[in-house]
């Protein structure tokens, strides 16, 4: 190897979990360091966005729906699970279409879907919104906290502080986006990118290909996950997304505000924007003392570097989102004892 340590970032939270669960760190050579990136949608949701969801959930006749992962993420004072315990109507759904059906079945309620996720999830929500519009379901709305992966990748690739040598790129997101958008990252920042699946063999193959490229001085985009990912991606999903949403600036936990890295409703669909429907005034959040999720999300610190890890912060009483999310790097380290 040309360098003492090669730092590879797995961007996606599902990869983080798979690496920890399979014990991959223990079988790869010591000169390769795997660091977790900002690809866990729960972890990068800002505290203020969670506080807003909690405030809306407390509004009269609101049914707040969301994916299971979001339930326990702490806001400034409580979580959606906590506010549910106090009587708010909060429900876990498995698809945004379930929330649309729920709205149809309860016309006297306002069903809000808290939308969190990357390019994998947001097209599904966009189709649910299109469906709600088609069926004239007017008591349904979406609290858009979606994020786009590439602006965050650019921020990380350009950071000298983080100094990543290459990216293990997310399989699920790439199914939608295709491999083309990574070309820019690889070329402009000189960082090789390999898109991999989630099996142990997939990940190890991805690591091998990245190390090969780094040793040869290549900066290419490779698709290891060819059974699902193409160069163009899923054009239909992308056009559905584009019909409902347009890029907007967004606040990432740990990374701060990133230009054009979020999604806002286009005018034709703004009726479904829960931020318009429930204009709650959200106070500035109280950041938990001692929590270093922000650094963990950027790959600057490891979960074990946090003085709260495993003590004040555990999966049953998480302080930060990296511990609560099933794909968070702190949860992975806690659960699998890496």
């Amino acid at each position, binding site marked *: 190897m040309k360098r003492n340590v090669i730092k590879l970032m797995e961007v996606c939270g599902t990869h983080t979990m798979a690496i920890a669960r399979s014990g991959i760190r223990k079988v790869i050579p010591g000169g390769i360091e795997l660091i977790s990136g900002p690809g866990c949608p729960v972890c990068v949701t800002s505290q203020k966005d969670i506080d807003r969801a909690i405030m809306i959930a407390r509004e009269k006749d609101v049914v707040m729906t969301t994916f299971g992962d979001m339930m326990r993420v702490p806001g400034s004072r409580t979580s959606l699970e906590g506010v549910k315990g106090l009587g708010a109507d909060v429900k876990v759904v498995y698809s945004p279409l379930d929330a649309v059906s729920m709205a149809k079945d309860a016309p006297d309620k306002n069903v809000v879907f808290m939308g969190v996720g990357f390019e994998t999830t947001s097209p599904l929500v966009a189709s649910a919104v299109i469906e709600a519009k088609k069926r004239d379901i007017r008591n349904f709305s979406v609290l858009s906290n979606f994020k786009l992966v590439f602006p965050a990748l650019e921020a990380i690739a350009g950071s000298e502080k983080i100094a990543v040598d290459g990216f293990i790129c997310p399989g699920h997101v790439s199914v939608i986006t295709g491999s083309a958008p990574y070309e820019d990252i690889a070329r402009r920042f000189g960082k090789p990118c390999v898109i991999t699946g989630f099996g*142990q063999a997939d990940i190890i193959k991805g690591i091998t290909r990245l190390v090969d490229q780094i040793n040869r001085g290549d900066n290419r985009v490779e698709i290891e996950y060819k059974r699902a990912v193409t160069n163009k991606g899923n054009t239909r999903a992308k056009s559905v997304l584009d019909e409902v949403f347009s890029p907007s600036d967004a606040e990432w936990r740990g990374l701060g505000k990133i230009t054009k890295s979020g999604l806002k409703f286009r005018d034709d669909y703004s009726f479904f924007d829960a931020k318009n429907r429930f204009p709650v005034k959200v106070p500035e959040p109280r950041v938990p003392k001692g929590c270093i999720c922000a650094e963990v999300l950027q790959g600057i610190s490891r979960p074990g570097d946090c003085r709260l890890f495993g003590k004040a912060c555990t999966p049953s009483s998480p302080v930060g989102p990296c511990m609560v999310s*099933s794909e968070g790097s702190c949860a992975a380290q806690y659960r699998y004892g890496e």
Partner: protein
Amino acid sequence: MVKDKTVTLQHGNGGKKMHEVIEVFRSKLTNPTLDEMADAAQLEVTSGKIAFSTDSFVIKPVFFPGGDIGELAVYGTVNDISMKGAKPLFISLALIIEEGFSLSSLEKIASSVKKAARASGVKVVTGDIKVVEKGAADGIFINTSGIGVVEKGGYFTGAKARAGDTVVINGPIAEHGIAIVNAREDLGFTGDIKSDCRNLNHSVEKCLKASRNISVLRDPTRGGLATTLNEIADNSNLGIDINETDVPVRQNVRKLCDVLGFDPLYVANEGKFVCFVREKDSEKVRKAMGPGSRIIGRVTKAHKKKVHLITQLGSTRILPMLEVSQLPRIC
């Protein structure tokens, strides 16, 4: 035969209407003790130790692929008694029914209780029915308590595990929990995913006949196999090594777990049990457990109170107890 379509508060009034509901169950579960219709049952058990257990069942949906709350309520208690190495004999059945619950569903549940009691060889000897207002319960809740006779050499606890014991399981894990999620959320995954809900007392009897060197019996229900093994490691002050590749998981269950972001090792089972046995008898016990059973690991002094999983890659990681319930992931 009751004529009303749903249970009303009148069915819980202690009078004639309540007896109509009682009759739904009594007629199916008839035996001399129950037929006395007294407030308590007089039972005859052999001298020695008895095992006594109670459990409440609040499952949603009440009817699911592979079973329903009636079967689950009987098998749950029968299995808890069996895991002590005891022969289950008698159970009680207490129902809390929400006003508006369908009477035809109640009949189906009564038939399931009858089927499960017959399969397990136990008698329902006493019971209770309460009806609560709409909204005060979720359809129907059932509590069962049971009594069994501890056979010679029985009464197993996690503390009795010994270093060197092998860990044997009677079949693929995670089927009940995944079947319930699939049915409850109407996820529409096909592939014949059914709960493994069944009685284990006869299988346990076969194991006890096959070996006198069994130290622990345990059914990994809520919290799954990982949590059960952690409890045993903790009780015995010993460690357990489990080989990931040896733990049986059906392909369709594994795939659905992957989609939801669930780890099958933490998903609930209702028809599985682990048996800790001296290595020399492990193969005999495995055969007694029946098809699908596998030797999945062993007890060690090397890492006390901890369960280690040897992964498919050959690396080792800690397999901790379930910390919080698993929730479906986002992507």
